[in-house]
């Protein structure tokens, strides 16, 4: 599976706006947003603002960095073994 990211500005009704569109094999699977200083201890983390298909979850996770987000996305999208 090929994962690509593309920077984007996201409207979140907050100061969190730096985001990445995440594509898996050319399809949009997630929008990640980097948490701003208003989140204090969690500032700088990447939040799953929206997940599509198998990435849809009511408990949207946060990741320390984009590599961690990528690993989570790959694991969720991997075909069941």
């Amino acid at each position, binding site marked *: 599976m090929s994962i690509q990211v593309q920077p984007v500005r996201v409207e979140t009704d907050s100061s969190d706006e730096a985001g990445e569109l995440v594509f898996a094999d050319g399809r949009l699977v997630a929008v990640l947003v980097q948490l701003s200083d208003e989140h204090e201890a969690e500032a700088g983390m990447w*939040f799953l603002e929206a997940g599509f298909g198998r990435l849809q979850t009511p408990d949207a996770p946060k990741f320390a960095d984009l590599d961690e987000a990528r690993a989570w996305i790959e694991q969720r999208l991997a075909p069941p073994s």
Partner: protein
Amino acid sequence: MAPASDADLIPLIRKLESIAQLADAERQAILSLPANIRAVDARQDIVSEKDRPSHCCLVLSGWVCRYKLLDQGKRQILSYHVPGDLPDLQSLHLAVMDHSLATVTASRLAFIPHENMRDAILRFPNLGAALWRDTLIDSAIFREWMTGIGRRSAQARIAHQLCEMYMKLEAVGLAQQHRCELPITQSDIADGLGLTNVHVNRSLKVLRSRGLLTLRGRELVIHDWSGLTQAAEFDPTYLHLEPRAA
């Protein structure tokens, strides 16, 4: 653990009188219920799912919540309880707990044996009716939470919860002038309302920036009650509070 003294169970009278009328004999019957008093630290289970309680737990001080745990530690908070509440009253008729009950803050709890609760209800049918009314209001609150989780925005859900908690506390004399203790964390709010703590943080910020409220430490100050109730679409009918004497 210590036996209750006469004044210990007053919070239950205050609670029931916020939703029903009690006669002197019924108030006396409550005060004379035997109970063991226990001080419990914050974030401790009181009764757990699948337990078979033999006592009803009455909150004397502190905050308590009902919750369920799902796979991978995911938690859904089902309700919050404040002094005067009997959060496992249903254990009188439903033998097995289908959820857990835990303290949110350090709490003082009274444990009243089921047999004594049953006896008081048989001797004082109006007391039984007040407890029944309490359980019906409990389910009205669940209907309101369900409506919120299913259909309200994150901001409206949070605003609604804050209005509800303020009114519950005010009804038992624990809040006034739109200020009250709010000892729950953003994670608790998220777990109760089906949100992430990121959305709770963002939404609280918007509610603050609109001048509706301030949250400082464990204190909630509502600056604009009418604005907050509008943001929440909050109609207190479902709390079925007794009109208070002026």
